[in-house]
């Protein structure tokens, strides 16, 4: 019935560690995404879910159970870990399970330069953007713990161990924790379920034929291009986890310009425009252009590609 809680600075590899521990111990991983998708729909209306995803203080309002949302979540966490244990990422679990004898609380940190490097690599953004991303995400982590539990995120007494991942590999840390609890390791790892990484960049072929046609035009002008090299986080949940990201289709290094093609009908374009506006607000220094269906048709026609 081991419960391991993982609190982390943004870019300190806390999510990766939680996943690794989940696999190592064969325990389910419970994180913010799991709570949002599995639990909130049963106790909150759709408009409340939106608020809960964005605002820590919304957790102080009443759920359909007549108790504050954060208490509803606490109850489910306690219920979920009663018989089987779990790896819990964030959620204020270090406070919720503070006095639980089966709980072990880990805090993961890294020096800022290392965190910036990791975020740059993970999302393909530059150092200035990564620094802003980290500041925003950490602020949300800190605010959640303070608004709900009046606890300081940096209070080391909340944790049994604080690990700096600058020079440690996740597998090394996971092994170290495993050595501390050898009797808790299960052979069956099927219980471990995770993949919150829907925004991770995957290398793939062109999604739409128009992208391949667009490349022909770029190559006519000997323009170097990169396909989906950068993912910009644009929304974070209450705890600072990225919940929505935007990956422009192309990057033209010679002009430091991103190009997003949209071949969707106009009625579906509104959502993409909203994403674009968010991206521009969060990353005003990023040069990005969206080409709509009619623009692309005209362009392809003009250059004889169609």
């Amino acid at each position, binding site marked *: 019935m081991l419960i391991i809680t993982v609190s982390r600075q943004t870019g300190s590899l806390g999510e990766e560690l939680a996943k690794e521990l989940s696999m190592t111990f064969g325990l389910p991983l419970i994180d913010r995404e799991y709570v949002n998708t599995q639990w909130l729909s049963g106790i909150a209306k759709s408009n409340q879910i939106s608020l809960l995803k964005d605002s820590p203080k919304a957790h102080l309002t009443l759920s359909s159970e007549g108790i504050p949302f954060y208490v509803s979540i606490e109850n489910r966490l306690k219920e979920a870990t009663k018989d089987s244990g779990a790896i819990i990422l964030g959620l204020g679990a270090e406070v919720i399970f503070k006095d639980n004898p089966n709980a072990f609380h880990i805090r993961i940190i890294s020096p800022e330069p290392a965190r910036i490097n990791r975020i740059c690599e993970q999302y393909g953004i530059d150092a200035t953007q990564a620094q802003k991303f980290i500041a925003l995400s950490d602020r949300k982590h800190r605010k959640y713990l303070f608004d709900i539990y009046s606890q300081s995120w940096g209070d080391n007494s909340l944790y049994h161990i604080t690990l700096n991942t600058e020079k440690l590999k996740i597998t090394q840390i996971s092994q170290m924790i495993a050595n501390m609890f050898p009797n808790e390791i299960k052979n069956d790892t099927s219980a471990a379920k995770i993949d919150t990484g829907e925004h991770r960049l995957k290398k793939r072929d062109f999604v739409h034929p128009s992208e391949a046609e667009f490349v022909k035009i770029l190559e006519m*002008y*000997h323009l170097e291009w990169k396909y989906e090299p950068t993912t910009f986080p644009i929304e974070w949940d209450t705890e600072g986890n990225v919940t929505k990201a935007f990956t422009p289709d192309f990057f033209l290094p*010679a002009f430091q310009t991103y*190009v997003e093609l949209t071949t969707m009908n106009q009625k579906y374009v509104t959502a993409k425009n909203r994403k674009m506006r968010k991206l521009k607000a969060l990353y005003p220094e990023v*040069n990005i*252009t969206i080409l709509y269906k009619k623009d692309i048709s*005209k*362009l392809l026609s003009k250059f*004889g590609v169609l």
Partner: protein
Amino acid sequence: MEKSNGVGRTVISKERLRKRVVELGREISADYNGLHPVVVSVLRGGMFFLSDLTRAISIPVHVDTLAIGRYPEGHSVSGAVKITKDLDILITGRHVIIAEDIVDTGLTLGYLTRILNNHKPESLHVCALLNNTARRFINLPLRYVGFNIPDIFVVGYGLDFNEDYRHLEYIAEYKLP
């Protein structure tokens, strides 16, 4: 001048063109006084603009042209653009102004600026007669702009449709077939 088939309404009259080009010439004369710039344009669309603009400049200037073409069918990079007539004047260390007839996607201008920057000019700026931003995806600073125009196909004053209408003294909308 008699209008031909496909040529629609006048977008910019001969008089407005003349007045604005003179204004651009004055601005350039003031900004480049003592710098002896080189004004460069792309054949053939920019030839009338280059001619009128440089004659409206009151300071000493050098004038040069280049031409862009496409690799023919059957070539390994068929369709790709290439320089078919290079500059005759050495622009290294010079102040260069590109006189462009029209900037729309920014692709041609982007190609040009990369080519010209390879010669390491002291400065490189753009003077665009027409600016259509509707389909722009390569944003380059345009120091001088004659007219901002909507997203329409235009001909005249050097701009053509299948080599026709370059000779028109005004800019007109062209209804594509």
